[in-house]
């Protein structure tokens, strides 16, 4: 793989993705006073007649989206990840239960959000939305994949939650890369270990795999951008070929990507799994890199987990 370039943040990809599908008149965008942050503002600028401002009122926004979906629209509703959670029951009862194709985007997910502090750092969103029947849960790693996956949502006949990140990270993809909702992307192949990652941790996983290769450990790295439905076919293959897993996510180790893998592995295999993520604690203010180091969401954390996983083979 060539040296990664720094592109936009995944939230920028969401904004571009909306523009890409804007020709479809069914697409409508809903905002809760954070369009400039989630990047739905670009759609608003081009298509104000199909953009609905709901003010700082997330519960209302979710049900307005549901009503629009019931009337043939394809609504994209965004706010900060943490504030979508304020309307969790609205999403559960008003959107997912009737199976309406409302696409929720929660930006500024994870500790990586940084200086805003713990109130803004959603570390449980992937877990809570994963528990809702019919929901697709997506967390892209860079702007290019976020744009592509956002564009694919238009064909998803059901509700979804996509978490995007605030800050720029190294690009993992080039324009035109082959990505598909529900299929994990293998970014690097190796036979000793599989690192299953999502979001801002994908780039960290690639770096960790490079370090591990210097120790003679050959790693597969997967961008598991779709947390639900989990690509269990790929997990089953890697369980056979690698025999050990590490998950890496900027999210609680309870119920997120690691939790999803643990659920499947524990009922289907005895393959060891080590999880890198937020260990049941809240963050604080600081730079992204300071916070990720503080919480062990870094290359060293993944390498240590990799050694533990391999030792348990």
């Amino acid at each position, binding site marked *: 793989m060539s040296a990664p370039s720094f592109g936009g943040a995944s939230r920028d990809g969401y904004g571009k993705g909306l523009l890409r599908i804007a020709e479809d008149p069914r697409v409508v965008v809903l905002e809760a006073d954070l369009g400039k942050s989630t990047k739905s503002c670009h759609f608003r600028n081009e298509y104000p007649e199909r953009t609905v401002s709901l003010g700082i009122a997330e519960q209302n926004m979710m049900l307005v989206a549901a*009503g629009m979906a019931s009337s043939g629209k394809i609504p994209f509703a965004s706010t900060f990840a943490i504030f979508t959670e304020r309307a969790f029951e609205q999403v559960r009862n008003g959107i997912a239960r009737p199976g309406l194709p409302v696409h929720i985007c929660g930006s500024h997910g994870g500790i990586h959000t940084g200086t805003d502090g713990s109130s803004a750092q959603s570390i449980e969103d992937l877990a809570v939305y994963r528990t809702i029947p019919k929901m697709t849960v997506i967390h892209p790693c860079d702007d290019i994949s976020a744009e592509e996956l956002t564009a694919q949502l238009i064909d998803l006949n059901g509700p979804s939650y996509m978490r995007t990140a605030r800050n720029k990270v190294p690009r993992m993809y080039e324009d035109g890369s082959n990505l598909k909702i529900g299929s994990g992307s293998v970014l690097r192949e190796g036979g000793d270990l599989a690192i299953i990652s999502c979001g801002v941790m994908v780039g960290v996983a690639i770096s960790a795999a490079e370090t591990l290769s210097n120790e003679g450990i050959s790693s597969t790295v997967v961008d598991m951008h779709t947390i639900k439905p989990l690509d269990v076919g790929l997990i089953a293959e890697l369980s056979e070929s690698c025999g050990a897993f590490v998950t890496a996510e900027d999210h609680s180790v309870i119920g997120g990507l690691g939790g999803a893998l643990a659920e499947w592995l524990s009922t289907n295999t005895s393959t060891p799994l080590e999880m890198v993520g937020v260990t049941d604690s809240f963050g604080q203010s600081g730079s992204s890199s300071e916070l990720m180091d503080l919480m062990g969401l870094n290359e060293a954390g993944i390498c240590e987990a990799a050694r533990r996983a391999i030792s348990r083979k």
Partner: protein
Amino acid sequence: MVKQKTSLKTINSPDAPLLHMGDGAEVDVSELEEMARRCRVDIVSMTHAAKSGHPGGSLSAVDCMVALYGTCLRFDTSNPDWEDRDRFIMSKGHASPAMYSVLHQIGVLDDNDIKGFRTLGSVCQGHVDMNWTKGVDFSAGSLGMGLSFGLGCALSAKMDSSDRRIWVMLGDGETQEGQIWEAAMAANYHNATNLKVIVDRNRIQNDDFMEVQMEIGDIGEKFRSFGWTVKEVDGHDMSSLIDVVDWANNEDEGPVAIVANTIKGNGVSFMENNPSFHGKAPDDEELRIALEELS
């Protein structure tokens, strides 16, 4: 559009054409009162059969619904999914017996459908559900959400240049939910002239009278303060109800709310103004008395 006279014989037939065309059709008040009586029989019978359900708030809401379905709601009984139908959003979803009784009386649901109320696999779920029941436009059960959903339907209709109206039935208890007022604010801001609310003001909620639990005060004034046009009405006077839904149907200055002053359990003496029949079904003896009173 040609004015038509409501006929229960017609609207209770499965092959009935478009019910009403929203043009202030000539209406025989006594026929709608008779339809409401039949709905009440359905409500007490289906809750009795299910040994559960919410008769009180169904009996308070049902006259408003009959006035609406019997006059201006544009709805095709032979094609409940008609895209340009008016929407009826039953936000107080526990009053599902009222919804099912109306759909039964207009021929969308049959006798067996309502007999199955609250049983496994029944199209008549405990709370109204758009995925289970023909003619139901919203999946309710969690209070405070229907007005927002209705606003979404209303904004979509405007985007599509459709003149369909969106009617939302709210309970007065559920106006305690903050989301109702988020939606009230947004409806006026977005000039949702096609959004029509009926508040079933029966003054009783699950645990007790609202004045004991959480009295909200003048609901109409609160809607007015958000820019809505509001009228109050006796929610059990069919003639007044027909007039007020006709007014609301044609009012296009902004969103409108009708505050219908009702009596919880209306029509069955021992249920009237009795908080215990919010969520309790009549037993055998109570059913016998209720049917006698409704005969």
